[in-house]
């Protein structure tokens, strides 16, 4: 036992040496995790750290390869979420896993309805439902369908159901991701009440401010391994971010004054200019200029609003405030078609879902945006299509047997290059790349970075989102740092360095939202 606070009684939940591999990839590697009675314990980590795998292995959705799980000293091995619930471990996901068509009361007592003479006793169910929800400050019509209430309310109902089913450990997997500030406050109140009742809460979130507002302890995972467990009060933000990103950091470097070059650069008129641009529940209003021949990096932790910013710039999501201008002319971005007409291109983070058109050929995927911009009445002749496709297959070294291969049969890196080709064929002025190097092999990775630098040198403007800080630092002239859906800093020229970015991510929020516990 490596419990840092040894007590007489065993901890509420103790996970020791938990391992899980998928197809040879070690998703969890000997992870220890301890939850004590009456604490809120943040489980943190970047993409692929193993948070979800830990939760799913703990609740038996996945079968563990090695390790032990004990609840109050008793070894348990649930084989699914329901069995975990019977063993006093309740789980509430971001997307509420209840049935929106059924009433609140039915959801609360699903599978354990009060019975009378062999029938569901609806009167008793309603009475008990109201009683169950009362401590949560929810007085609502329990006969109304659950789907009619806000996500926050649905989540509290899900929590109430789990607690009422005698949960001692409550796992909340990103419960606040789609809530507004008001709803978050209500949820936090519920969580504190439960903590005072001795329930151990595992809180998965991407919002650092919420971690510091609420949590007693923090466990950080990275690449399937335990990085460490700390008391929140004893862990400065900068150390937390360093733990999550996995780097040793010196104290933040001195601020370097922008060089003369930077000042000159900044005087150049921007290609695109956003002022107070934002969208409720997506990203707070931001200002952003991008000049021709400039790479602007967007850095931040997962869920910090990087992708949301990129999507707003391309019009994939529609902004509900602020102004946009291209070449000094005000423009409206109501959708990708507007953005493409203005000479924008966008490679999304989720290539499979939003990027490639899987069953179509590499050639068709490459010419799609160009053809869409020309309109259906002006088809690109087949010969010309083949020329374009072959040119980019050679130029970007797309590994495909021929241009007619369905794109879904290519590897991730080659799919990404084909998507880049799709936009390069339109000769864009601004190219937006969301995680362009994610999930692709090392060779393609280097090629894409070289390509970014070459495009920039050719005078294209680029906006690049990446979790790889070294990568961002390597090619960006300016880096916008985001935290908790807000643009919190802009680094330029000599300031662009990994430790500066990390420091900006970890910086204290200007206005404290929630009082510390």
């Amino acid at each position, binding site marked *: 036992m490596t419990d840092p606070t040894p007590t007489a009684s065993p901890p509420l939940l103790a996970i020791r040496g938990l391992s899980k591999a*998928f197809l040879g990839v070690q*998703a969890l590697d000997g992870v220890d995790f301890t939850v004590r009675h009456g604490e809120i314990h943040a489980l943190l980590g970047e993409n692929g750290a193993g948070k*979800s795998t830990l939760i799913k292995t703990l609740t038996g959705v996945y079968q563990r390869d090695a390790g032990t799980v004990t609840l109050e000293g008793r070894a348990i091995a649930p084989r699914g979420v329901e069995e975990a619930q019977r063993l006093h471990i309740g789980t509430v996901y971001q997307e509420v896993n209840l049935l929106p068509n059924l009433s609140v009361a039915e959801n609360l007592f699903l599978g354990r309805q009060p019975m009378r003479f062999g029938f569901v006793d609806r009167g008793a169910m309603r009475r008990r439902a109201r009683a169950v929800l009362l401590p949560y400050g929810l007085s609502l019509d329990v006969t109304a369908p659950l789907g009619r209430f806000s996500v926050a309310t649905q989540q509290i109902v899900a929590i109430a159901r789990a607690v009422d089913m005698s949960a001692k450990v409550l796992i909340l997997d990103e419960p606040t991701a789609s809530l507004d500030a008001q709803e978050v406050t209500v949820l936090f109140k519920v969580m504190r009440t439960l903590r005072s009742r001795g329930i151990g809460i595992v809180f998965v979130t991407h919002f650092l401010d919420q971690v510091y507002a609420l949590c007693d302890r923090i466990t950080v995972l990275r690449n399937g391994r335990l990085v460490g467990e700390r008391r929140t009060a004893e862990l400065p933000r900068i150390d937390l971010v360093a733990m999550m990103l996995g780097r040793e950091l010196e104290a933040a470097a001195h601020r370097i004054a922008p060089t003369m070059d930077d000042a000159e650069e900044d005087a150049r008129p921007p290609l695109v200019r956003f002022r107070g641009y934002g969208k409720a529940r997506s990203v707070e209003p931001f200002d952003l200029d991008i000049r021709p021949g400039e790479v602007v990096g967007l850095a931040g932790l997962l869920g910090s609003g990087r992708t949301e910013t990129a999507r707003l710039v391309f019009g994939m999501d529609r902004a509900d405030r602020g102004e946009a201008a291209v070449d000094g002319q005000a423009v409206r971005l109501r959708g990708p078609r507007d953005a493409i007409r203005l000479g924008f291109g966008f490679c999304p983070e989720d290539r499979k879902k939003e990027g490639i058109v899987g069953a179509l050929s590499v050639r*068709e995927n490459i010419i*799609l945006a160009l*053809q869409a911009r020309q309109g*259906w009445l002006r088809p690109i002749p087949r010969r010309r299509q083949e020329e374009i496709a072959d040119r980019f297959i050679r130029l970007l070294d797309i590994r495909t047997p021929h241009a007619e291969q369905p794109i879904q049969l290519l*590897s991730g890196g080659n799919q990404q290059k084909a998507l880049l080709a799709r936009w390069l064929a339109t000769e864009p002025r601004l190219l937006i790349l969301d995680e362009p190097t994610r999930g692709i*092999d090392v060779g393609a990775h280097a090629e894409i970075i070289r390509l970014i630098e070459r495009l920039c040198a050719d005078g294209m403007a680029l906006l690049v989102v990446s979790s790889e800080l070294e990568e961002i630092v390597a090619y960006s002239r300016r880096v916008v740092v985001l935290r908790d859906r807000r643009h919190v800093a802009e680094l330029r020229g000599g300031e662009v360095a990994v430790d500066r970015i990390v420091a900006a991510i970890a910086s204290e929020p200007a206005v404290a939202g929630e009082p510390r516990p």
Partner: protein
Amino acid sequence: MTRSVSSGPSRTLPQYGALAAVLLANWLLFPDFFSIRLQDGRLFGSLIDVLNRGAPVALLAIGMTMVIATRGVDLSVGAVMAISGAVAATLTQAGWGLTPVLAASLGAGLLCGLWNGLLVAVLRIQPIIATLILMVAGRGIAQLVTEGQIVTFTSPDLAFIGSGSFLTVPMPVVITAVLLGVTALLVRMTALGLMIEAVGVNRLSSAGAGVNTPVVLIAVYVWCGLCAAVAGLVVAADIRGADANNAGLWLELDAILAVVVGGTSLLGGRFGLLLSVVGALILQAMNTGILLSGFKPEFNLIVKAGVLMIVLLLQSPTLTLFLPRPARPRPVQPPAPSRAKPESPSPSAGA
């Protein structure tokens, strides 16, 4: 149409083979099956009959193919046939000339398609439900147009569309061929075909690449409505009347069956217009064969269901695991490492 199905004869062989097999079976049952004679300047014979009787479903299948290629379905085409037939018969009876009758009747079909397209593209209602509305309501509309009567007419002009002939070929066959040709030109000589397939494969990606997905969706439903209206006209002209209750009844299912038999997947994407028409002819040839053989017509439905079963089994992912893989003409690939790493879904489950 050359490019309708991407990879050459091996994909199209099953359909032509099936058509040949059914025709051959008919010939064995009925040795006169292939004999064609010229009478009063028009061709007659069982084979011509297959083409002629198959025309309405073939017409529906042309429009349905593109709807299915966008991963949709149009259940309302039978009802739209009833509407267009009712409009044509009622207006003809009221003394309108051929041109305004055709315009009104086809216009009704276009409007029906526009309605379906708006529901699917703008309101984003699932196609099967969106078109179910008109499937139910359309027959009611047709009954309102005919005021509940079976409307008959005597105009030889309109009747010519159903029972006349052009250069000895029956008009329904000519109309089908022309509509097939026009549709094929429209989608394959423009970029519309590519966009339809792209939207069907991945609507999100297509929209992100700048494809005007709502317009593409509306266009295919409008065209499907037009095809249904033409089919309704042909049927009404043939029987010289409109029966709002029975015209086109259940034909939407035959049209879907024809498209699926023709090899266009209900999951959207690649489509073949000619193959769907071949699918319709396969169905009609089976119909005719059963009638000629003297079996009860009821067998028709069971045989049809059997064919559907076979086609769907061939497409079933479960079954294809056990079948030998069809020889796909895939060029030799270098042992490139590029294909070796499809992303596995699970390890990235970390967050």
